[in-house]
């Protein structure tokens, strides 16, 4: 059973947004992709009642960084249940440790080559939207 709720993509780089959307499309993942350009916007969307099936979160963001977003979500009873995948360029060990510590469900480094990226997105979509049993969250259709 695939989860058809929207995917929240938190990413400030429009190139990366376009490439991510393209990668989802190429993998035939039909879920709506809601884009937040910074951490603040992401939190606002979530507080306004958006219940995504998956959050793809970059760490380096304007205003509120990815780790801070994780921190706020972790403190919220409802938001902490939403599967969150950190999708970023960095693989600084400290970032990885801290992200998991703040409740990230997965940490993926964006590869430079697009072929690799498409593969990665396919794996993410397959696992989190189809294989994985989503938590029951109020407000989810």
């Amino acid at each position, binding site marked *: 059973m695939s989860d058809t709720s929207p995917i929240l993509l938190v990413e400030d780089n429009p190139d990366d947004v376009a490439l991510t959307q393209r990668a989802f499309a190429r993998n035939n993942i039909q879920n709506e992709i809601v884009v937040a350009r910074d951490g603040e916007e992401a939190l606002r969307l979530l507080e306004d009642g958006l219940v995504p099936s998956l959050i793809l979160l970059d760490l380096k963001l304007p205003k509120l960084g990815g780790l801070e977003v994780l921190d706020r979500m972790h403190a919220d009873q409802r938001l902490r249940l939403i599967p969150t995948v950190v999708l970023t360029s960095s693989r600084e060990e400290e970032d990885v440790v801290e992200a998991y510590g703040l409740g990230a469900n997965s940490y993926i480094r964006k590869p*430079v080559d697009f072929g690799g990226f498409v593969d990665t997105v396919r794996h993410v979509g397959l696992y989190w939207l189809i294989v994985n049993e989503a938590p029951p969250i109020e407000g989810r259709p």
Partner: protein
Amino acid sequence: VPANPAVTAALQRTRTFAAAGAMLLALTVLVGWGIGNVDLQRFVPGQSTMKLYQAGAVVLLAAALLLRNPAASAACGALAAGLGLVTLAEYALGAGSGFDELVLQDTFSASHPGRMAPNSAAALVLLGLAVLLQTGSGRAARVANACGVGALAVSLLELVGFTSGARELFGVAHAYMAVPAAVCFVLLAVAVLLSRLDIGVGRALSRGGAEGTVLRLTLAPAFLLPLALGYVRTLIVDLGVSQNVADWLYSLSGVVILTACAVFAARYLGRASEVVAATTERLRTLVALSPLAIVTVEPGGNVMSWNAAAEQLFGYTAAEVVGKRTPLISEAEFESRKKYFDVIAGGATVQEEAVRRRKDGKEVIVEMALSPVRDAAGAFVGVWAVYNDVTERRRIEAELVRLNDELEQRVAEQTAELLAANSELRAFSYSVSHDLRAPLRALDGFATALEEDYGEALDETAHDYLSRIRGAARRMGGLIDDVLHMAKVTRMDLIREPVDVTALAHDVASELRAAAPEAHVDLQIDDGLAVQGDAALVRIVLQNLLENAWKFSAAAKRPRIEVRAGEPGEIVVADNGVGFDATYSDKLFTPFQRLHAASEFSGNGVGLATVQNVVNRHGGTVRGESAPGGGATFTFTLGPTVSDDESTVQSNAKGGRT
């Protein structure tokens, strides 16, 4: 003046001889009683006999003095004194108690048979008390001393009376002290008085210095001369020489002998005062030549002496200050320091550091030691002050502290700068890893999109361009990764420990084999290779060197790689690959510098730079040697090369591994 140990020993010997002599004499008298020989009882014909009990008491007292045992002294002393007291009581009551002849009958003595003379009894009481009390402390010992002196006086009077033929003066109740008894009593009195050298007569005689010597020189003649001369006079009168001639001889010998004693004592004192003068002179020279300023000051504050070093240190000449108030401290300060004088007068030495003002107004820091000046009688008459100038030393110390502080400050500043630089580097590499990669992803992604979506509309050249764009983007991605890795190596903490290089090399080699199972490389790794270093970093070094060796020897007919020991502390990685042009060996370790075309061998030119980075962090060296086609040899050390001896020690410490 402390007692002279030789004198003390001589006095102790005299004491022993005196006690032993008394005992011998008394024993002889006892033998006389035992065999009924009157001459042995009296020694001098026509005189009284020494009585049985009297001789027995003398033996006991002499034994107690020889044994020097408090219990024996108390018992014998009490017994002798008791015997004397009973005898005196008999005289006082005018009645015999039967006690006198309890053991043996005195068939010789007409009056008071078996009973000693009253003065003998008195001497015995005194000697008994002296022996009883001489082992005691303080007052008891002083009483014993007085008793000894009394007994000596009583028995000497009797003896002098006998030798000078004037016995009638000393007979009491027609009873005379026997001559052997008088001699015994004199000897015992001498032994008693010398049994305590810390008190009374013993102390006076054993005293060190001129005083004791003169006393010892004059006291013996003073006692012995009248005895000896009186006896000689009696003898020559008995020989028929007239009384007047005998008196003349008596006086003359007295004059001669006493003059000799006086000359002897005077000479001795003269020598002693010469010694004192020489010592004083030596002391004066010492003070004059001393590099330390030495000053004496009266309790009132007037300077008594001022040596040359003091003139130099304080700038005042002796003439300027001697007899006047000390110029070194103000009157007020002198008054406030008066309490020190009591402490110093009590014998304490005060040591302290102080600031004193020179004549020219400059201040000097001095270490000061103060101790009392005493006159001949031992009274406190002033203060010795010895000054050591420590101004320069203190200045240097202060300078040292200042320099040290400055150094610490600089180190702190530099550490802060270093930390700042380090954190900047961290921020930079973080930014590189994020921001520099994003455009590359866009380049590759959109080139791919273009190819996928509009591929059909593009010709072959356009496809080639797109593939070049994507290739360039990926290469740059790899480059960024390598640079980040190199930066990470720089940042990693270095933990030095023994590292098993052989095991690490085998580990890396198995990874290389796994990645390229088709390659047949002859990989020779020596056993027992070890270094002191950070295991993770050493692994990075081996990984890079072995990867290079693997890569560059792949084309050889029989690829061969060796990992072996070089000079002590060196590890060598050698291959038989293509090598490199030795002309450019200085560029080997420059980041991004490649000596082979990218088309020939892949790589970014970061591997050897990373190796050098690690080796440098360990304080070691790395070098590469090659001739083109002759293989490459890389040699590295971690830390300064140690000598053979030290490496033996280190290898022992590591459990025998070399």
